[in-house]
């Protein structure tokens, strides 16, 4: 037993070292890379991947394919911007308030909509996003189609306002990590199991005592709140927002990293985002003057190829590839799954 325990401990230690090195690399990048262009791409990767993770909670884990996440993000951006400019509230506090507002709006609006299943839910999420955008375009309070700008000024942490990209890089990275940990926590909690049961079969879930509506509302509220946080980050970073932020194309863009990376995994949006967004930005910077739309064309082609030949995404492919076996046995020294379970069980019974 002690040998097995030791093997498990080594595995956990190796895993922590590998993840630590990865994290260290990301923390150190701004120390060596000074180009604002490259840093901008990283910031983009961070907030788009976070948005994609928010979608993944609802789409990948619960099976409710929303196409309205740009609307939550936009609403969060508007809420925090208006709280800052009109009510003079501190940005950090207004971010929290914005998240609460968006969570409430999403919960209230989607409460009656959760009787809709499958494609009907997707349709209602599109209609909701478009309706919200049209409402903002027609509302003087929201600044109509011309949008809202945030004040410029001296660098300050209190006002979350910087001339350089480096602070945004770190805040973005922190946001990504926090949301990732939250999603991981949800995935392993009772809620995560309930959501995946609902994804597989809603009627069966109801039959074994899971309240589908309650869990779906929880998922949509958390997802919308994370999207609102991304909206706040986006607004503070770009310092200007307009209703174009909420178009359907942006919602689609927020889903692509998750589907390409692997929607069934919490890490899917991260992998997809890290691969797809730099590629897309590179194409946009290099060719957009002669061939506009080439970056989205590439996105579409990759998406179609992934869905056609690797339906579980890049991570799904990795999970069954020889590469994973190599990484597991040679680098991480992962013990067989039975050993892992045995030690886990022994630990749990020891605790009791």
């Amino acid at each position, binding site marked *: 037993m002690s040998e097995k325990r030791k093997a498990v401990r080594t595995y956990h230690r190796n895993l922590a070292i590998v993840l630590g090195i990865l994290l260290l690399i990301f923390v150190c990048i701004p120390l060596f890379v000074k180009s604002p262009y490259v840093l901008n791409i990283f910031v983009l990767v961070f907030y788009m991947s976070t948005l994609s993770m928010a979608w993944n909670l609802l789409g990948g884990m619960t099976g409710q394919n929303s196409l309205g996440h740009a609307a939550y993000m936009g609403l969060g951006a508007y809420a925090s911007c208006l709280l800052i400019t009109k009510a003079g509230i501190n940005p950090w506090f207004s971010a929290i308030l914005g998240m609460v507002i968006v969570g409430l709006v999403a919960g209230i609006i989607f409460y009656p*909509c959760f009787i809709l299943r499958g494609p009907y839910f997707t349709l209602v999420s599109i*209609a909701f996003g478009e309706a919200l955008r049209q409402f903002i375009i*027609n509302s003087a309070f929201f600044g109509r189609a011309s949008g809202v700008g945030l004040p410029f000024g001296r660098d300050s942490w209190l006002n979350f306002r910087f001339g350089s990209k480096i602070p945004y890089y770190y805040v973005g990275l922190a946001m990504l990590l926090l949301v990732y940990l939250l999603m991981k926590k949800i995935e392993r909690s009772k809620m995560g199991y309930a959501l995946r049961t609902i994804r597989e079969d809603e009627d069966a879930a109801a039959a074994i005592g899971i309240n589908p509506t309650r869990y779906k509302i929880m998922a949509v509220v958390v997802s919308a709140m994370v999207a609102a946080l991304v909206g706040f980050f986006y607004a503070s970073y770009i310092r200007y927002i307009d209703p174009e932020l909420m178009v359907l194309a942006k919602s689609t863009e927020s889903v692509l990293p998750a*589907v390409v990376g692997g929607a069934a995994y919490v890490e899917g949006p991260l992998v997809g985002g890290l691969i797809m967004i730099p590629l897309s930005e590179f194409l946009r910077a290099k060719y957009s003057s002669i061939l*506009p739309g080439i970056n989205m064309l590439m996105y579409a082609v990759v998406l179609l190829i992934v869905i056609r030949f690797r339906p579980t995404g890049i991570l799904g492919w990795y999970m069954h590839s020889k590469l994973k076996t190599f990484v597991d046995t040679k680098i991480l020294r992962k013990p067989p799954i039975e050993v892992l379970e045995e030690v886990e069980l022994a630990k749990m019974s020891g605790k009791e």
Partner: protein
Amino acid sequence: MSTFLQACVNGLLMGGFYSLMGMGQNVIFGVMKIVNFCHGEMLMVGMYLTYFLCTTFGLDPYLCVPLVAIIMFFLGAVIQHTLITPSLGTKSFTNLLFLTVGLGLLLSNGALVLFGSEYRTIPTSYSQVYINLGPVTLALPRLISFGVLIVVSIALFAFLKYSTIGKQIRAVSQNPVGAEVVGINTKRIYILTYGLGTALAGIAGALLTGFYTIFPTAGASFGFRALIVVVVGGLGSIPGAFFAGIFLGLLETMVALFISPSYSDLIVFVTFIVILVVRQLIIIRRK
């Protein structure tokens, strides 16, 4: 009064296009139970096809309609055979959804890369001819388009109702397993259905070119309205789709007339959400 009548007629003409788009979507949705999110982009492809047939061969836009329909049918059949049928087997709704979303992205951005974002029109000798019918003025291209629309709708209805292939399509949409048992080749029906759906979108696109500008995202608003038509008109019902499309067109123009043109989209989307929820509530009640 005359503005009201004029708005009614305009709504009716626009509604005809929503109907035609909705019918194509309805056939696809009914048979395969997938939402075709690139339906609007198919309309855009139909518009560009008409444009190039007109400019290179000097054809009249309305003569292009059958040609466009045939080309679009084969395009749809190829897409169905190479992309959608293999993915239908995986039973993953997310993948099927993003397959059509990805196709839409591919088509609209492909058009952007190939043709640029400029607006194009097809000039014809009769594009500026107007007909006075009492208090109402009508552009001739709109009237011709509407006439062709009605003919295509009736032909589609008759095709699905009386022809053998139409009966097979309806059989597959009601029960795919049962259809397979009685000897219908469902894969073939899927290909025919998707081809038919895209051909209808292409026809709508070709008919639109007479009085509408051509640009890479021209189809987006039509695509979503087609979905509204399917939901409101009822699955598998061609007359339902026809009337739902007309209703939608009238609703838009009435809102624009009585409230404000800028609110017409907002009202359309809110109405759609309400109809969806109420419809589902009625279904639950019936159970």
